[in-house]
């Protein structure tokens, strides 16, 4: 392009005022930062406990069938364990992806769409998972007894 006023006009003023977007000065980012560390430590215990009980104890991985899972979810301890694992993992993971979107999305539009999809996925998984844990029926009617946990008396 030749020297000309048309090209010159496109240059921003070098001293154009720089504006930082006004944001709320809450403690949100602080708590989310602390939560990431705390939930990470708790998740380590929960996940490795889960893996140990499912894959190592007794017959190990070969013991896993409908009866095994149903038996675990009939126990309130495992209900709480799995619920905690589900919620912590989902919030931890969602928050992690949220920061990644914040870091990489350059335009507000992209950022908004990606975060919308993320929160939608979060809601679906958490609601569905929580429902399953609490409404799970370990002894569905008319099922062959050898597939069910031992405490079913149908």
């Amino acid at each position, binding site marked *: *392009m030749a*020297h000309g006023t048309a*090209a*010159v006009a*496109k*240059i*921003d003023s*070098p*001293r*154009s*005022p*720089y504006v*930082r*977007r006004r*944001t*709320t*000065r809450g*403690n*949100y*980012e*602080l708590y*989310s*930062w*602390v939560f990431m560390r705390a939930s990470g430590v708790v998740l380590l215990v929960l996940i490795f406990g889960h893996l140990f009980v499912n894959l190592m104890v007794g017959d190990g991985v070969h013991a896993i069938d409908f009866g095994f899972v149903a038996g675990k979810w009939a126990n309130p301890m495992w209900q709480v364990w799995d619920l905690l694992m589900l919620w912590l993992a989902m919030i931890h993971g969602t928050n992690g992806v949220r*920061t990644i979107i*914040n*870091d*990489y*999305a*350059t335009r507000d539009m992209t950022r908004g769409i990606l975060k919308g999809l993320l929160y939608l996925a979060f809601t679906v998984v958490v609601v569905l998972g929580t429902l399953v844990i609490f409404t799970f029926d370990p002894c569905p009617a008319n099922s062959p007894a050898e597939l069910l946990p031992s405490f079913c008396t149908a």
Partner: protein
Amino acid sequence: MTATLEADAPAPAGEIPSFTVTLRVRRFNPEVSEEATWEDFTVEAHGTDRVLDALHKIKWDMDGSLTFRRSCAHGVCGSDAVRINGRNRLACKTLLKDVNPDKPITVEPIKGLPVVKDLVVDMEPFFASYREIMPFLVTTGNEPSKERYQSPEDRARFDDTTKCILCAACTSSCPVFWTDGQYFGPAAIVNAHRFIFDSRDEGGSQRLEILNDKEGVWRCRTTFNCTEACPRGIEVTKAIQEVKRAMITRAF
């Protein structure tokens, strides 16, 4: 005057050997083209020459239109931070022999700030962040009639962060800053650290409040790019972590 090695006349003892080196400079002139282009310059350089000396040689002897900032040329003023071979360095503190002169040495403007021309960037966003953290002593009450006393131990607490020369090498090496330039950046946090941990200063909680922003210290991903880039050897990431810790102790 350039000393060169003659093939038939062996160099006198103590003479510094010279070599040719190619500088691949990122050129940008918005009055000519909106595209930035690479341009190669081959210069004769001594073993003791810095990248800045090579840039001078280009500007003075080859192409006077090459534009870059430099003031003191001795690593104190912080004017000539550029990206050399993909790393942020001060051109005046980087010896050519240390950045592999066998291959072309790339010299680019620092990233994340708008380029004005060639290697000159608009530093205003950087200084705006710096101003926001209030880089001055904040006190209450009457002025003391003598000095504000500080023990050597209290002084040592923030010694590292007093070394900042505001060259923007750290901030423009930060991938979070590259995205949208909204992040305060390591340099602003380092200079806040300098006052937050100063025993004479009373504006600490105000500064922590400012940096508790969505774009404040919590956007730091601890990639250590800033620590690696700092020409003054400030442990930038450590300073950021200390500010984070101060915020957490304040909140809980």
